[in-house]
C-alpha cells in the first residue's frame, strides 16, 4: 500500500514536532517513518506508535519526549469513523492545544530559518575578506587581558583570535602524530609483498599503532559572570576539536543541560549565543548536584581516555559534601579532571569558598582560563599523560 499524501504530510509534521522538542530527527528518518507506515496497520494507534518509535527514537532517553509528542500528535477518534482523515485533520489543532508552549513549533521554525540566514551571512563575510588579525603589539596586549574586561565591540575580534590560536595548536598536535619507522605493529601484508622473491620474511614492514584520540567532556557553569568565560572556552575547544575524538558539552547553573547537539550544527557561533537563553536564574549554582546528574545519567561518556573539564568559579550554594563525593566518583571514572576557574587570574584570589576547597584535592589540574594566553597554556594539559 502506498502511503496517502495526507498521511505523508502528517508524518512530516510529526517529524517537525519532534525536532522542535529537541529530538535530533533527520529527514531520512522521517522518510523511513513514512515507509514504515506502509508496513503496519495505520488504523491501529498502538502499531503506528511502535513503528514510529522504532524509526524516530535514537536512544532510550528520548523516549519520554517522544511519547509526549506522539500523545499530542495522535488525537485519533475512532467514533468519527474517518480513519486516516481523522488522524490527519487533527494534526493542526493538536499542536495548538497540547504543546505546553503554544506556537513553539512556529518559533522553532522561525529560529531555524534565522539560523539558515545567519549561515549565509557568515559565508558571505568570510569569503571576501581575509581573517583580520590585529598587529603584533596589539595582540600581546590582547593575550593577557581578562575576557571580562573587553568592551562588547571587541569581543568578536577576540573570539576570532581564539579560534586562530586553537587552529595553530591543532596543526602542531597533528604533526606530532606522524608514524615512526621503528616500533608499532608488524604489517604482515606489506612484509609479504616486500619479501616475495626472498622466500622468507627477512625484512619486516611496520605500521604505527593507531593512536586513540582523547575525548573531552565539558561541564560549563553558565550562571552570571561565568557565562562569558564559558563562551570563550567553548570557542577555543571547538576549534581544537579535530584533535579530539569527541567533545561533549553540558551547561549548568542549577540543572545540567546537554548542549552537544546544539553546538554540533554548522552555525555553531549563533548556537553559542543561544546557550544563554536556556539558562535558569533561580537559586544560584549547585555544582555538586550538576556533577551528580552527570555521573548518574551520562557517566558512560567518561572513561579512562576522557578528560573532564569543569569551568566554574566555585561559588556553590549546594552541600560541599555532595560536591566532594561526586568529584570522587567522577575522578575514578575519568582519565583526568581539570578545573578551570577564571578568578584564579586575579593574583589575590585564593580558593577559599567551601565548594572550591572541597573539590580542589580531587582535581588533577587547576587553571585560570581567563584570557587568551591561559587558554593557550591549557592546551598543554589536554593530554592524558
Amino acid at each position, binding site marked *: 500500500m502506498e502511503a496517502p499524501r495526507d498521511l505523508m504530510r502528517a508524518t512530516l509534521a510529526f517529524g517537525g514536532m519532534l525536532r522542535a522538542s529537541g529530538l535530533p530527527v533527520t529527514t531520512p528518518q522521517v522518510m523511513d517513518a513514512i515507509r514504515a507506515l506502509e508496513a503496519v496497520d495505520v488504523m491501529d494507534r498502538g502499531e503506528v506508535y511502535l513503528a514510529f518509535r522504532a524509526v524516530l527514537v535514537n536512544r532510550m532517553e528520548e523516549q519520554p519526549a517522544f511519547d509526549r509528542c506522539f500523545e499530542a500528535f495522535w488525537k485519533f477518534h475512532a467514533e468519527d469513523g474517518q480513519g486516516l482523515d481523522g488522524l490527519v485533520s487533527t494534526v493542526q489543532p493538536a499542536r495548538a492545544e497540547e504543546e505546553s508552549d503554544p506556537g513553539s513549533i512556529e518559533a522553532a521554525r522561525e529560529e531555524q530559518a534565522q539560523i539558515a540566514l545567519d549561515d549565509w551571512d557568515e559565508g558571505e563575510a568570510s569569503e571576501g575578506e581575509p581573517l583580520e588579525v590585529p598587529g603584533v603589539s596589539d595582540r600581546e596586549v590582547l593575550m593577557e587581558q581578562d575576557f571580562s574586561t573587553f568592551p562588547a565591540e571587541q569581543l568578536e575580534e577576540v573570539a576570532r583570535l581564539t579560534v586562530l590560536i586553537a587552529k595553530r595548536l591543532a596543526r602542531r598536535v597533528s604533526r606530532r602524530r606522524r608514524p615512526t619507522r621503528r616500533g608499532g605493529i608488524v604489517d604482515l601484508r606489506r612484509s609479504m609483498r616486500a619479501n616475495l622473491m626472498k622466500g622468507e620474511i627477512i625484512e619486516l614492514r611496520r605500521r604505527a599503532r593507531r593512536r586513540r584520540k582523547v575525548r573531552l567532556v565539558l561541564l560549563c557553569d553558565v550562571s552570571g559572570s561565568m557565562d562569558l568565560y564559558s563562551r570563550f572556552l567553548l570557542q577555543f575547544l571547538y576549534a581544537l576539536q579535530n584533535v579530539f575524538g*569527541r567533545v561533549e558539552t553540558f551547561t549548568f547553573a542549577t540543572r545540567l543541560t546537554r548542549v552537544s547537539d546544539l553546538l554540533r550544527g554548522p552555525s555553531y557561533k549563533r548556537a553559542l549565543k543561544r546557550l544563554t537563553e536556556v539558562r535558569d536564574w533561580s537559586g544560584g549554582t549547585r555544582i555538586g548536584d550538576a556533577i551528580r546528574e552527570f555521573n548518574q545519567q551520562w557517566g558512560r561518556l567518561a572513561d579512562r581516555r576522557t578528560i573532564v573539564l569543569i569551568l566554574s568559579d566555585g561559588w556553590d550554594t549546594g552541600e560541599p559534601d555532595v560536591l566532594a563525593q561526586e568529584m570522587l566518583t567522577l575522578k575514578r571514572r575519568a582519565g583526568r579532571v581539570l578545573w578551570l576557574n577564571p578568578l584564579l587570574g586575579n593574583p589575590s584570589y585564593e580558593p577559599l569558598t567551601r565548594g572550591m576547597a572541597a573539590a580542589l584535592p580531587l582535581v588533577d589540574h587547576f587553571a585560570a582560563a581567563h584570557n587568551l594566553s591561559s587558554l593557550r597554556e591549557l592546551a598543554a594539559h589536554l593530554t592524558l599523560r
Partner: protein
Amino acid sequence: MRAEIKKIQDMMETADYVTDPAIAMSVHLAMTLKKPLLIEGHAGVGKTEIAKVMAKMLGTSLIRLQCYEGLDAAQALYEWNYPKQLLHIKLEESTTHTTSEKEAAIFSPPFLIRRPLLQAISEVGEPPVLLIDEIDRADEEFEAFLLEVLSDFQVTIPEIGTIKATQPPYVILTSNRVRELSDALRRRCLYMWIDFPGFEKEVRIVTRKVPGVNERLAREISRFMETVRTIRLAKVPGVAETLDWAQALSSLHADHLDEELVAETLGCVVKDADDIKRLKRELASGGIGRFVAAQS
C-alpha cells in the same frame, strides 16, 4: 494487528522466545525496511537472543561478530592467511614463476580468510542474519568503519576487487551502553530499548524456559526479582539470572520459596560480594515476606 507482525510474534514464541508487540514490531520493520536494528538494554535481558531467534525463524544462518576493545578490520572483515602464503612462497622458490605470477597466486581467494563481515556480504542464497554483538565495546574508529560497510554492503579488497552483497544481510547490533554510540550510527539504525521484563512477562519466561518450575514458584521468583531490582545494587540481575536461579531451584525440587532456600541459592541471583551482603541485610530486616508477598 497486521498479520505479519502477529506471525513474527507467534514464530518467536514457538522458538521459545517470550516476546511482546514492541519487539515483534522492531523485528518486522528491520526485515521490511531492510535496516539494521540497534538493541540497547541492561545485561541479560535477551538482546542477543533476538538475532538467534530471527535466524531460526527465517531459516537462515547466523553470523556473529563479537566486539571487543581493539577490534579492527583484519579481525572483522578479512585477512590474508600469512602462514599459508609463506608456505606457498617457500614451495615455489625453485620454480620459474615471475614475481607477479607469485603475487597473483598468493593474493587470491584460497588465501583469503573471511571474517564475519565479509562472510555476511559474500553469503550466497538467503541473506543471513548478521549479529554485531556489544558494539559499545569496540572503539569509535571501528564504529566509523562499520558505518561504511553497513551503508553499501560492499567491500573492496585491493588484490581481488569489489565484493558486493547480492542481498544485504539482516543486521542486529546490540549494546550494553558501556560507551555512548555515535549519533551517525544511531541514525542509520532502527532503535529498540529492552527493559527488564514486567512481572507477567517474567512469569511466562520462567515457565516457558524452565519446565520444572510450577506456577506458584514461577510467580514467587518473578516477584522476588522484581523487588530485588528496586534495591540499589552494583549489578542489577537480568533475566539470565532469573533463569539460572529458577534452574537451580528446579533441580532442588523446590515448589515454593522459603528463607533457607533463598539464602542457599542467593549466589544465582546476584554475583557481586557487596551486592550479596546488601541483599542479605535487606532480607534480614524485612524477611522474605517483603520480597515474595503479592504487591498487587
